[in-house]
């Protein structure tokens, strides 16, 4: 089949959305298909929205048998066989309208734009032959705001065979961007309350200086320098595989995230349990308390208790790690399933 993968983009900003497109290109080509990718720059400002959406309407991709659209507003591209892997709305006009993230005033003009956008999105969504999302959270929003049904298709990670598992050390590892909404600080605060010599490794890049600095000073204040390692840098794939392979467990506790996030998936491929919190949103679609990880209340004491349990009850921790792979199969998180569904 000739397939074109389409996404909006922000030039020179490498968002996570690129991964799924790039990986899918490789997997589809391996399957013998001819694939092109299209990344169209887009700015979400209210006054510029509709003009850019018009641009998508004029694209002629009829050379492809099928197109798959990812980041919005790519779903506006017309095609007789359009499939969406819808990762999120333009959230400031949807579920984040009543939040400080909106970025423009709640006045008559912007409400008009918002309402028109909802209607236009709905119409474009309806043009699709099939809509997939990356999580139940996003599927629920599609139903609530646009009245359209969708199928959850969990995005796999590339080349999962490279992950492996070996004897666990004492380290709980969190490999993701160091940002406030990822809440690495909560892990540090929790460590203070632990009774067992659990250690923490927090590594990843950050968009700003502020948060990593805050983490480091927190470690200092709490006198945890010998038990917490904060690495504010890009972690290579090889390092990631290594850290996960030997860790006691992984931790991933973002605030109300849309989907489960690659960190929890990578941990599962490494046969490791994941520590998360009850308010982490999409992560809970993957992690089940006591099955393949721990779901604690989002406070330091509860997290500390969970950490101690992971440390003490090693055999259970290890068992949960093994179950992590099973859970992936349960949720059909695999490239075979992905391609199967996308090309159905």
């Amino acid at each position, binding site marked *: 089949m000739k397939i074109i993968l389409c996404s909006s983009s922000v030039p020179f900003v490498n968002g996570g959305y690129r991964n799924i497109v790039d990986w899918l290109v490789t997997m589809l080509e391996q399957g013998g298909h001819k694939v092109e990718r299209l990344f169209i720059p887009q700015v979400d400002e209210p006054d510029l929205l*509709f*003009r850019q*959406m*018009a641009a998508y*309407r*004029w694209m002629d991709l009829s050379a492809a048998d099928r197109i798959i659209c990812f980041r919005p507003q790519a779903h*506006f591209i*017309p095609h007789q066989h359009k499939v969406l892997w819808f990762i999120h709305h333009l959230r400031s006009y949807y579920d984040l309208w009543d939040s400080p993230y909106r970025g423009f005033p709640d006045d*008559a003009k912007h*409400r*008009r*734009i918002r*309402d*028109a956008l909802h*209607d*236009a999105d709905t*119409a*474009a969504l309806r*043009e699709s032959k099939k809509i997939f999302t990356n999580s139940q959270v996003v599927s629920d929003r599609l139903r609530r705001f646009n009245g359209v049904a969708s199928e959850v298709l969990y995005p796999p990670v590339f080349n999962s065979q490279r992950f492996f598992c070996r004897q666990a050390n004492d380290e709980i590892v969190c490999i993701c961007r160091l940002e406030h909404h990822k809440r690495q600080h909560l892990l540090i605060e929790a460590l203070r309350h632990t009774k067992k010599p659990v250690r923490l490794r927090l590594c990843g890049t950050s968009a700003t200086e502020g948060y990593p600095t805050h983490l480091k000073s927190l470690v200092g204040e709490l006198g945890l320098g010998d038990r917490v390692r904060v690495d504010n840098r890009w972690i290579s794939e090889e390092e990631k595989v290594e850290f996960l392979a030997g860790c006691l467990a992984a931790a991933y506790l973002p605030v109300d995230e849309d989907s489960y996030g690659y960190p929890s998936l990578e941990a599962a491929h490494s046969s490791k349990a994941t520590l998360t919190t009850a308010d982490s949103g999409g992560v809970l679609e993957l992690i089940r308390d006591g099955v393949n990880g721990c779901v604690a209340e989002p406070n330091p004491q509860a997290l500390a208790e969970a950490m101690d349990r992971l440390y003490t009850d090693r055999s259970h921790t290890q068992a949960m790690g093994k179950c992590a792979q099973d859970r992936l199969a349960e949720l059909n998180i695999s490239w075979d399933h992905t391609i199967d569904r996308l090309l159905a």
Partner: protein
Amino acid sequence: MKILMFTPAIKPSAIGRMCSLVTQALVRKGHEVFLVRTENEKLLEGDTHDFGCELLPWNDTERVQSLAGQSDLLVYQMGNNHEYHFGCMVWLPQLPGILCMHDFFLGHLFWSWSDKRREEAEKILRAWYGEAMAQHYFNFPSTEAFIEGTRHEAPMTEWVCSMALGVVTHSNWGAKRVLESCPGPVYVVPLAYDAPGHVDGDRQPDNDALNILTIGHVNPNKRVDSVIRAIGQSATLRAHATYRVVGSIAPETITTLEALAAEHNVKLTLSGQVDNKTLAQAIAEADVVSCLRWPALEAASASAIEAMLYGKATIVTDTGFYRELPDDVVVKIDPDDESASLQSALERLQRNPKRRVQLGKTAKAWAAATFTGDNYADKLLEIGRAATKTQILRDMIEQLTDQLCAWGASDQILALRETIDPLRLFSHCGSDKPMSR
């Protein structure tokens, strides 16, 4: 929502009266309404209807613009009278909104508006109706000839509808031109009306007598002479029917009609213009109200609605707005066989007082449920929401057109379907119109 309503406000304006029912309903529903009076400067002195909200004149430019910027919805009440709708024509081109069309034929409005704007007017005529009409329009020998010559060929409906974000009409008749020219949604909504001064104690039918009433400015359009002749043709009617006509009337017409009545032995009373109390009394005493019209120029008939709200058996011509009224609430007369049709209808009504009263009751119940301010207000809010998308689309198309024109695009290029069709996704109704400068 914050709503800006443009309408004539003075007491004599029936449109103003209708509008006041709507604004009151909107206020009751919790919306913030401001009313811009559109009557010509000299008429701004007169007494107004009670709209339940603040009024401001159309020439308070700063205030109008400021309120428009803050409003979620702009609505224009449009009719054929330029004196009354002067302010509408000033603001509609600059501040697009929802148009409520009370008349499809806007020839008089356009004529008056064209004064000192001849060249622009001819351009408009040429664009919508062609060169020939552009040449003829201002050269008809008489008012009748003008109406005859333009009401089908160049009613000027498109001229205003093309400026609107959406159009509310009060009947389907005449909607074709609206649909072809309005870029946004078009709704048919029953006119809002009430029957003030309703006199309690319906007239008990006096078995044989038949009081027939016609209301309104007496002109040939109202078929008064047809009624007189129909009565004259029938012995029963001559014996039992009395025909009262209430409304302003020219002296010549009085003479003509009285002579006609005498000739046919018909009991005719011409009351001329009366006050509201007398009018209400006349209606209360009537058994049948004749609302015949030919040709039908109005989008909807206030007097027919009023008659129904008063619970009267109503006779209408089977055309236009009247054709759409349910068959069981009015008596419809075939305009192609008016004489015979009218005579037999009146005879039947005279013979059967019970049926007359029942007809009136049915009409009243139906009219009271249909022609309400609440319903109209609800529909306005709905079309307002539907039309916001049109505005977004308009802005987008305008930007595109500007860009294309900046590169000297010919009309053919502007009209390319390949450019317009993919954008249909964004529009509410079909965009069959080419982009224009």
